[in-house]
């Protein structure tokens, strides 16, 4: 304060005649005024809000150590102000000493100190605490930090911070002594303490660090454990930590007061009109005489993991405003009487249903999957099912799916808000590998799972692809030069017409296999061309239950053989047309698509061609193969079922059985050489395209299990017409991260393939067992490797098949 004291009369209005700036070295005058929000010419009355606000605004910049505004002079009703600012120093650099480099780098991560940040006392203090906490978590309790602040002479008003750290010794736990425990043994209690363990030199995997925070949590766990067995008043009277002199070990003493053991006695329900007390008791599953376990009680009332608690019973019936309070009405000796006070409230109906977070997927794609609809009674189970089905769409991150019911007690309604987070749904497949005698196979596959066909011609929608209508588009090209080429596409619209979930699938492919001469007409040329087209309609059924889907398709395949050996006698040149109708009935109630833990998936398939020969009545006794196979005729059925059981968390047993049978309409024509079954190997459909059906059986060579019984006789005409296969697989999900799900597995399989119905021997099977691993990444799909041991000799061999390695691409088993 310079000059003479100035008398300011409170309540009188003054005009600011001038403002000067003091203290701050390189601050801009106008900027300071701008921030402060005061100007020459402003009128102020003391005490002044305007001045207070100006100081506040300047503080908000977090640039100053000290801020003052004072009146320096007055003439009449005009006053002169001075703003005094003291800059805070900026950080120019900092160093850490006293510890090794790896720790230094870790600490730099923790500290997050950037050049240029303003150095305040608070910053120094929080940095120090961060360092100490870092060491505490590592078990160093004696660690200390000394902080040095130096002025950086190279820059004005800048400082260098130095952290000198003394780590001290790491403290470990020698022993944990428990006092006062009778109902639970020392061993049981030590086991309860998950993060606080004694040091045992023989167990090198166990850490015995002492972390105070974790220790406190473990003490809570001890109390929880007591409450589970009815000691509801159990408490820790005292806990002490003693450092063993001369060693880096501590001993822990815990004194427990167990209290009495209590039991449930009479449970009465009050206020229940919707459900009688007997029903509620049967849901509660707590009997008179059970140990008093508050945790179990609250779980049975509110939080059963499977949703079988009392609260859910009401919630599933619209009672959103339901309220239940258990009250201990009488405690007599060791028995407790409970009164369950219920306020049922009115049944809530849903009013608005909204979705947010859909930055790519259009509303209608999501809304059609949502089972909570306006006007419906509010049901918790509907929400759960919706959440499951939304995650099964695969467009959203399942971990971040969210739902928020907003009740409105006045109108008795509830608004349901779903929040989704989009994730990448396109897959790119680029692969190179060995394929059945064809050399290196290269594949380019693109699959777009949230495609929008109507936006193909809309330039703006290409970001990078037109998306958001929930359609699927797959494009694949596969080639080994002139020997083998395959091109395919498929397109699926899951809700044809938008009215019902009836899906339309259109797919087509063209493949060329060519040995010998290049050109058509070349006598050396041996080629097989296949062209196929499929139009399919799928629909979800509501009966017998709504896990069923029905798929029907018209399929057409055209084969052209050009001096090509398929294993069909006297049929090396010619055409064959396969025009068929396929119907597939599926019931799938698995919980998630990639790694199911519950539910089952059962598929029944019937595929048949028109019985041309029966319709025309033609005699085929002397017909040439070309005449017989010009229009293929057969009927075929397949049954396929997989059951998933979660044995332990993320440990799932998958049990699988399948079988298939193909028959002929006309004995003279006989069984079709096409469409036969080939069992064995990895089951990949990609490599052999000649109208066969490939069934994997690990531990054996690809396509090796065929009825003809000759080694290497896996040509088309030699395939089986009746097969069965059984698999048991134990999977353990080690990485549930949706960006890369990983699970190793153990399997046991058995299967066989027969040439006719008469040859069928249900217990004559080729057996194998082995292990493998799978990894699922949204961008690449499923990849895996299995090593299997085949116990039985393959047809045409005399010694067991032995160890075989299989590479898996896509979901096969």
């Amino acid at each position, binding site marked *: 304060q310079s000059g003479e004291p100035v008398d300011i009369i409170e309540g009188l209005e003054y005009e600011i005649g001038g403002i000067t700036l003091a203290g701050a070295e390189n601050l*801009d005058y106008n900027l300071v005024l701008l921030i402060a*929000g005061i100007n020459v010419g402003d009128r102020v009355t003391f005490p002044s809000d305007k001045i207070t606000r100006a100081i506040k605004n300047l503080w908000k910049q977090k640039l100053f150590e000290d801020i003052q505004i004072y009146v320096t002079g007055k003439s009449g009703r005009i006053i002169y102000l001075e703003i005094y600012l003291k800059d805070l120093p900026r950080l120019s650099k900092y160093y850490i000493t006293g510890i090794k480099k790896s720790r230094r780098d870790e600490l730099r991560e923790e500290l997050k100190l950037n050049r240029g940040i303003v150095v305040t006392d608070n910053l120094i203090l929080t940095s120090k605490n961060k360092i100490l906490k870092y060491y505490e978590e590592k078990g160093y309790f004696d660690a200390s930090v000394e902080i040095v602040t130096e002025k950086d002479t190279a820059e004005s008003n800048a400082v260098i911070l130095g952290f000198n750290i003394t780590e001290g010794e790491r403290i470990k736990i020698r022993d944990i002594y428990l006092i006062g425990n009778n109902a639970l043994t020392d061993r049981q209690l030590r086991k309860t303490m998950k993060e606080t363990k004694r040091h045992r030199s023989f167990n090198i995997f166990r850490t015995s660090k002492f972390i105070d925070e974790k220790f406190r949590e473990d003490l809570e766990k001890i109390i929880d454990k007591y409450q589970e067995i009815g000691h509801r008043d159990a408490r820790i009277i005292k806990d002490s930590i003693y450092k063993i002199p001369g060693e880096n070990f501590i001993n822990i003493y815990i004194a427990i007061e167990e209290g009495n053991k209590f039991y449930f006695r009479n449970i009465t329900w009050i206020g229940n009109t919707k459900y009688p007390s007997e029903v509620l008791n049967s849901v509660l599953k707590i009997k008179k005489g059970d140990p008093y376990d508050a945790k179990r009680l609250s779980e049975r009332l509110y939080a059963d993991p499977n949703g079988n608690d009392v609260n859910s019973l009401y919630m599933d019936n619209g009672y959103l405003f339901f309220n239940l309070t258990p009250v201990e009405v009488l405690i007599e000796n060791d028995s407790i009487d409970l009164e369950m006070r219920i306020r049922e409230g009115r049944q809530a109906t849903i009013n*608005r249903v909204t979705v*947010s977070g859909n930055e790519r*997927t259009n509303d209608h794609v999501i809304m059609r999957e949502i089972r909570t609809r306006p*006007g419906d009674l509010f049901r918790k189970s509907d929400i759960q099912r919706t959440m499951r089905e939304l995650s099964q769409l695969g467009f959203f991150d399942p971990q971040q799916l969210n739902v928020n019911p907003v009740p409105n007690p006045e109108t008795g309604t509830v608004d349901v808000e779903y929040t989704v987070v989009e994730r990448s749904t396109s897959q790119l497949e680029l692969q190179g590998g060995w394929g059945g005698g064809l050399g290196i196979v290269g594949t380019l596959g693109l699959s777009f799972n949230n495609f929008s066909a109507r936006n193909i011609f809309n330039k703006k929608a290409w970001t990078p692809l037109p998306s*958001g209508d929930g359609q699927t588009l797959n494009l694949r090209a596969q080639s080994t030069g002139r020997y083998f080429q395959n091109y395919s596409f498929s397109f699926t619209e899951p809700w044809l017409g938008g*009215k019902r979930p009836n899906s339309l699938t259109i797919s087509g492919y063209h493949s060329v296999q060519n040995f010998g001469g290049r050109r058509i007409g070349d006598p050396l040329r041996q080629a097989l061309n296949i062209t196929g087209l499929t139009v399919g309609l799928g629909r979800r059924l509501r009966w017998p239950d709504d896990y069923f889907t029905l798929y029907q398709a018209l399929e057409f395949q055209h084969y052209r053989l050009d001096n090509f050996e398929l294993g069909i006698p006297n049929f090396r040149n010619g055409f064959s047309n396969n025009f068929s109708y396929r119907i597939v009935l599926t019931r799938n109630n698995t919980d998630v698509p990639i790694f199911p833990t519950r539910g089952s998936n059962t598929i029944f398939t019937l595929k048949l061609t028109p019985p041309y020969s029966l319709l025309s009545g033609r005699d085929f006794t002397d017909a040439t193969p070309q005449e017989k196979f010009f229009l293929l005729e057969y009927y075929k059925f397949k049954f396929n079922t997989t059951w998933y059981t979660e044995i332990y968390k993320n440990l799932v047993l998958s049990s699988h059985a399948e079988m298939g049978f193909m028959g002929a309409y006309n004995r003279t024509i006989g069984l079709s050489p096409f469409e036969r079954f080939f069992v064995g190997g990895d089951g990949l459909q990609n490599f052999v395209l000649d109208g066969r059906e490939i069934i994997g059986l690990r531990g054996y060579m690809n396509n090796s299990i065929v009825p003809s019984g000759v080694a290497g006789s896996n040509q088309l005409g030699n395939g089986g017409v009746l097969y069965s296969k059984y698999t048991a697989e134990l999977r353990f999900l080690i990485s549930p991260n949706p960006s890369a799900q990983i699970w190793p597995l153990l399997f046991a399989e058995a299967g066989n393939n027969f040439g006719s119905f008469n040859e069928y021997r249900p217990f004559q099977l080729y057996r194998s067992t082995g292990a493998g691993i799978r990894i699922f990444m949204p961008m690449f799909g499923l990849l895996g490797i299995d090593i299997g041991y085949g116990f039985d000799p393959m047809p045409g061999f005399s010694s067991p098949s032995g160890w075989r390695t299989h590479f898996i691409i896509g979901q096969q088993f």
Partner: protein
Amino acid sequence: CSEYSKVLKSNDLNYKFEMAKKYYDKKKYNKAYPIFDELLNLYRGTAQAEEVYYYYSMTLYKLEDYMLAAYHFKNFYRTFPQSKYADEAAFMTGYCYYLESPVYSLDQTYTIKAINELQLYINTHPKSTRIEQCNELIIELRQKLERKNFERAKQYYTTMQYQAAIVALNNVLNDFPETRYREEILLLLLRSNYELARFSIESKKLQRFIETRKACEDFLERYPDSRFAKEASTIRERAMFQIEFLKENQEYGS
């Protein structure tokens, strides 16, 4: 390009700023951006800070990073409320959100933000020349929300969830009293009511046919010359016939 790396390496802040502005004027926003970004930190708390920040925000806008631009424009007019750019920045906040607002069938968070920011601008800058433009933008954005709600409600009708359709369509009428879709909503309402009534269990039929009749009357009263008027009166007749029939049956029963 060598000139550019010289600018990047230079320690002369004023030179950097001048060059960045030059790049900006030449529409080389990709080049200008890193320099403004750097200057933003170095100029903090100085006289140039305001102008650098304005350019920085504008560069983001020109680079079509509207989300970030909106954030910085907002921050700008809060930090420098007396700046000559404050008015523009306040408007640009809303306008950037407007540009970020997607098609009606996607998440509308930015639409709502845009409406709020533009409305705030109108309230705080009543004399601005941009008011008219703001109003136009707000109308466009509100129509987007209106369409979203309408299409959602209509989807319930399309997917044959008639009860849900009735609730949702009525919500649209309540939320958007001036809706452009009123005729279609009233039509869908009477159709939904009729379909719901037809496939109801006996005990609910009478009540629902009465509601159908009312929905038909609402439609006909408001749109007597609509091309759907004939359909509405046909449904009304059918509903009335059903009502009479059900009432007689009830009397019979009792």
